[in-house]
């Protein structure tokens, strides 16, 4: 009897919803984390400013949406503008640091994050803005209503990551990037303009972060501090997934998001983030090279 009671008390509908929520948030987190892991894997740069690029992407989305009324134009323009910003930042502040102690790049990107955050506060003020979803409408998931938009972002994020993976594997620039990541010196000796490869990679990472910001915008308010939460989670994902491991960070993103959304059934969201911390601690204790890395190096 007690067993039946136990099974009856499990909130199945909640679990179902939270599973879908977890996957949706997980895919966005994966898009953010992919950019971060890409930048780290190829350039050995820990981009502290990644959350701010996410945040500025969202703000760009707000601005373009207000000007054109079209969500998709906003998404594309925001991505391009922030990618350019990323390129500019890399050329001015990170290029001079190539070859120096990698910790200097952490400091530099930390400085950039402070500047960008306060810049956003200055330009847009402390009140949160909203991005309107491009379409509303729910579909029925069993006996529940679930918004189409959320599913769409998960799909779009997956598509972007997938498209990038194909680019990396088959295009010549993808080969350049992979060669540079493996052996920067020989890549140069083969005529690959490594400083520009780095700029390009940083720009792509920035663009991915910006796109995530715009996509996620309708779900939460857009404000200058939104990057902080995400950068923290993204770092956890990158460490748990294995630094520089694209597939690992995607798996870790979904895993951690699912754990968090399940936890939020029973505890408050603020406490639910502890889940990700616990996962990190366990990973560090038992599999420090990454939970989803096939064999520890």
């Amino acid at each position, binding site marked *: 009897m007690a067993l039946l009671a136990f099974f009856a008390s499990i909130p199945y509908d909640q679990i179902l919803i939270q599973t879908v929520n977890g996957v949706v948030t997980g895919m966005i987190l994966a898009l953010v984390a992919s950019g971060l892991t890409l930048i780290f894997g190829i350039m050995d740069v820990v981009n502290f400013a990644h959350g701010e690029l996410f945040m500025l992407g969202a703000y760009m989305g707000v601005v373009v949406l207000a000007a054109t009324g079209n969500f998709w134009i906003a998404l594309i323009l925001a991505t391009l503008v922030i990618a350019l910003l990323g390129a500019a930042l890399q050329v001015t502040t990170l290029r001079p640091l190539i070859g120096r102690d990698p910790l200097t790049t952490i*400091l530099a990107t930390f400085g*950039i994050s402070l*500047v960008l955050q306060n*810049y956003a506060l200055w330009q847009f003020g402390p009140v949160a803005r909203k991005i309107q979803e491009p379409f509303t409408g729910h579909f029925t998931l069993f006996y529940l209503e679930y918004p189409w938009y959320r599913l769409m972002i998960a799909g779009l994020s997956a598509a972007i990551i997938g498209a990038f993976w194909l680019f990396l594997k088959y295009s010549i620039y993808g080969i350049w990037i992979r060669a540079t990541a493996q052996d920067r010196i020989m890549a140069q000796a083969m005529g690959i303009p490594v400083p520009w490869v780095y700029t390009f990679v940083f720009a792509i990472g920035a663009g991915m972060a910006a796109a995530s910001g715009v996509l996620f915008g309708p779900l939460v308010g857009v404000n200058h501090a939104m990057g902080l939460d995400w950068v*923290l989670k993204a770092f956890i994902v990158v460490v748990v997934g294995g630094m520089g491991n694209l597939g690992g960070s995607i798996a870790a993103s979904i895993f951690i998001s699912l754990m968090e959304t399940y936890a939020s059934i029973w505890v408050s969201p603020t406490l639910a983030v*502890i889940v990700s911390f616990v996962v990190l601690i366990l990973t560090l204790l038992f599999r420090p090279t990454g939970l989803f890395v096939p064999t520890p190096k």
Partner: protein
Amino acid sequence: MTQRATIAYWTGFCVVLALLIVAPLVLPEFWRRFLTEILIWGLLAMSSDILIGYTGMVSFGHSAFFGLGMYGAAAALLTLTPPMLSLAILYGLIAATGVAAFVAYFATRLRDIYFAITTLIFSQIFYVIIFTWTEVTGGENGLTFSRPPLAIPGLLSVPFTPDTLHWFVLATVTASYLILRRITQSPFGMVLQSIRENEARTRAIGYAVERYKIAAVMLSGLFAGLAGVLYALQNKFAAPDFVFFLVSGEVVIFNVMGGIGTLVGPIVGAGAFLLLREAFSRFFTEFYLIPLGVIFIAMVIFMPQGLLGFMRRWLNR
């Protein structure tokens, strides 16, 4: 030459100390407080220098040690009657060192960047705990309490005046500096620096590098906690904001601006940062971090040795 350098060093030290002692008597209240704050943040930055400058480990976790020192002192002052200075210090140091041990255990086996990120995440863990555990920590609003008297058990007990508080802080910071200086010049300190130069080689020689690193983190955490206690005494409140990882970031900024590996450099860095913040606030109000951040980035690129970096060897005699 060493003789002359040593004399020059200690002369300089005494001159600076004398100026700092006299300061509260001549400065207006606002600047007196400002100076005391510089000393407190300077102590925090100095504790961080043990890791960054001497052991070569960049930590973003100092906000946790600082905050726990603050809350530890708060605990002593709120739960015990009568509130006692010595116990406030004791509780704060224990709390901070405990946290440092915890963080050290996990993080020291990781190298460089991974260590930095992990310490950052840990400081956030503590932030979340403090922020949500409202019953114990006062949550978002923090804790307020009153300042205990300056008491040496058995000898005297007088309430603090602004001047005596400043001198107390000055004495504590100076003593900390002298102790840390002694430690960095000791065999232990030499091993730390050897780890910074070439960890693999240090290990190959036979030193238990992990143990030294853990000790370094705990030492660093101890003095960071002390800074937290002083802050609690100065301002009579503890708040979760100080545990947020951005504070750790600012501490690292103090270190880099002042010059790592010099112990005094970070204090100068804290002073420079706070002064610039004051100045910029006049023009940019709350957006002072924009120009300040740009200056910091420029320093990382063009002046990575910091303001006092050129004196590094001399300061370490």
